């Protein structure tokens, strides 16, 4: 039973967003007996509701509220109103996500130290490291039932993987396998094993893939300590004249403005909406927005140096069959400046259906060069590049006061310019990816530009020194003790790995910190 809490109950922890960060934090706190109200802007959709159809599913789940873009990234030209591809629903982007679950490499916690001074980059060491995070990663891998951890076998390789694997081995790559995936490779945790349906991005109808929508959220609700309010869009965080936050104003499902009182507020709306909310909460006491004495709220937006390579072969591959992202080459993830850039990248299998291939293979292009590639759709294999991009102060989320959302709130403008390191890495990765497919006979390769961002990071970054960032090593804001950030926007730097396992590990760790501080009466 969901616990109904009163609007004026100022003993509750209010969490904004129920995705990887917020959904896990909500459950972890509820398990510890803490009363939680989770405000979720989207509706609730469960495996029965998910749709094996790319555009229909996008219409059901994706965040399509008004946003704008600027900067020299190609997404701003190709998709000016759609900088990101993320979810507005209970479970957040863990409904769409593909499940790739990798730990950071040790040096990636300390990139300012490791990479040195990179012109134009605002690199900073995390205030935590691999040793500190190891036990939290252990818990996260258990929760997500990640393959190749805790005795779970790897997933079987599908056609798309076999092509990647053969090409990579031909080039001498060694760390090639079907990934560490938050997808059941056995029936376990009351969920089925992967049935190789191939619609991981559209929500797993078998429930084989972990999503907070039908795991953590339901477990939290079962305790009676968690109430999830759907279609509830947080508009502003309120504070008193001592500078402590006191509650959250939100638009409810009927569009009426409500106010939920709070002892603690945790922001977990993804790296676009979290800074937007802090900025939209500006007051006479905090004219630049909440938790923003450093001026860092919204800055250092990262999205990974992405891109894809599709290879066309003379025979069928049928890449869409089976798990979308269960395949990885890890040899290039190391830091090796001799390649002409700092940091590293992973190569992971990816596939899109025909409708998304038409939209994303080379957005805006037309004519036979484009359509002849689609004609070979059945003979295509695909891989995705996930590399560390450089944080830059000027890559940032700002309020676009010219563009209002359906509630009349200023929308987020997402500004991103590629750093020269990002460009060098992407070109190198295109080259390696193409070589992999050519090694197994590709007749044509397509170095495909980045899609709207699925990995959004870093806009409320963690820092040792309050001058350099927004939150401390527990995700607690430097300025306001009872205001936390609990999602990917805490990332100090992005690492080469898909971010969600780290978001989940940080959320589990933060729950421990918050409940401890609450019981000691510190907040």
């Amino acid at each position, binding site marked *: 039973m969901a616990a109904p809490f009163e609007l004026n109950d100022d003993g509750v922890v209010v969490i904004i967003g129920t995705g990887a960060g917020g959904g896990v934090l909500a459950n972890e706190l509820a398990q510890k007996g803490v009363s939680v109200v989770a405000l979720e802007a989207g509706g609730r959709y469960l495996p029965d509701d998910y749709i094996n159809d790319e555009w229909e599913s996008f219409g059901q789940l994706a965040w399509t509220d008004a946003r704008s873009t600027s900067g020299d990234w190609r997404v701003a030209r190709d998709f000016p109103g759609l900088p990101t591809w993320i979810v507005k629903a209970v479970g957040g982007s863990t409904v769409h996500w593909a499940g790739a679950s990798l730990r950071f490499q040790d040096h990636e916690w300390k990139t300012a130290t490791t990479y040195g001074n990179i012109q134009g980059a605002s690199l900073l060491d995390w205030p935590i490291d691999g040793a500190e995070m190891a036990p939290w990663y252990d818990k996260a891998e258990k929760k997500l039932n990640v393959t190749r951890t805790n005795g779970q076998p790897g997933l079987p390789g599908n056609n798309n993987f076999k092509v990647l694997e053969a090409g990579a081995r031909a080039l001498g790559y060694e760390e090639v396998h079907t990934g560490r995936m938050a997808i059941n490779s056995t029936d376990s945790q009351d969920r089925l094993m992967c049935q190789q349906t*191939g619609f991981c991005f559209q929500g797993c109808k078998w429930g084989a893939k972990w999503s907070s929508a039908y795991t953590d959220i339901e477990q939290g609700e079962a305790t009676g300590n968690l109430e999830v309010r759907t279609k509830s869009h947080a508009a502003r965080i309120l504070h008193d004249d001592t500078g402590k936050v006191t509650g959250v104003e939100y638009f409810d499902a009927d569009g009426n403005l409500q106010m939920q009182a709070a002892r603690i507020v945790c922001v977990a709306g993804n790296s676009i909406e979290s800074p937007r909310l802090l900025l939209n909460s500006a007051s006479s006491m905090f004219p630049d927005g909440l938790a923003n004495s450093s001026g860092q709220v919204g800055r250092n937006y990262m999205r990974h140096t992405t891109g894809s390579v599709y290879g066309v072969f003379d025979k069928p591959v049928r890449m869409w069959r089976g798990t979308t992202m269960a395949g990885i080459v890890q040899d290039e993830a190391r830091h090796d400046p001799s390649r002409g850039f700092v940091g590293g990248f992973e190569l992971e299998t990816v596939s899109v259906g025909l409708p998304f291939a038409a939209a994303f293979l080379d957005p805006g292009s037309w004519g036979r060069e484009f359509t002849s590639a689609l004609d070979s759709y059945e003979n295509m294999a695909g891989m995705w590049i996930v590399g560390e991009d450089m944080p830059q102060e000027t890559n940032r989320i700002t309020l676009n006061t010219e563009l209002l959302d359906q509630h009349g709130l200023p929308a987020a403008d997402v500004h991103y310019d590629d750093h020269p390191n990002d460009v060098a890495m992407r070109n190198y990765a295109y080259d390696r990816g193409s070589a992999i497919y050519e090694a197994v006979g590709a007749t044509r390769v397509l170095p495909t530009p980045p899609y709207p961002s699925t990995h959004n990071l870093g806009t409320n970054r963690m820092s040792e020194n309050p001058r350099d960032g927004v939150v401390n090593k527990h995700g607690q804001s430097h300025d306001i003790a009872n205001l936390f950030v609990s999602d990917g926007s805490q990332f100090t730097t992005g690492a080469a790995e898909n971010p969600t396992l780290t978001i989940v590990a940080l959320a589990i760790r933060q729950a421990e910190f918050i409940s401890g501080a609450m019981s000691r009466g510190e907040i």
Partner: protein
Amino acid sequence: MRQKASNRDLTRRQLLSRASAAGASFVIGAGFIAAPDAAWAAETEHLAPETFATLVQMARDIYPHDRVSDAFYVIAVKGYDTAEAAPGIEAGIAALDGAAQGRGHARYLAVGWERDRVDLLRAIEEGAFFQQIRAGLVTGLYNQKAIWPLFGYEGESFSQGGYIDRGFNDINWL
């Protein structure tokens, strides 16, 4: 009322039988004509017949697939045959015909080679009319379920139990 994440407790067999009960609507899909009759669909209400025929040719020249019949292109642009959209389309096609005449052809449809038609389109590709037609085709053409088999794409797979027993790893030429 909140729905339970019932898939967790069910076996694969139960899920499958439920899925095939719902399968008909999945497989056929709503809103698309399975075997479109081009002659029927090409009849227009608001656009002049020649305008519509030119629009269909333009659609094919933008996204040419020789194994895809006109019927699919007709459906992809049929949505412009409304009182609201027609004037803009008539103007855009008239301009395209004018450009063709400027190069010595009777009209766009009279340009014999695709290469020459594409030259005419390249000249207007930054313009609003071209962009409207091109962007509309991305979903108008490729999101027609009936077109997918022509590309080998199999679409929805849940109702058939995924590919676990249907060839997810059947590649045999590596």
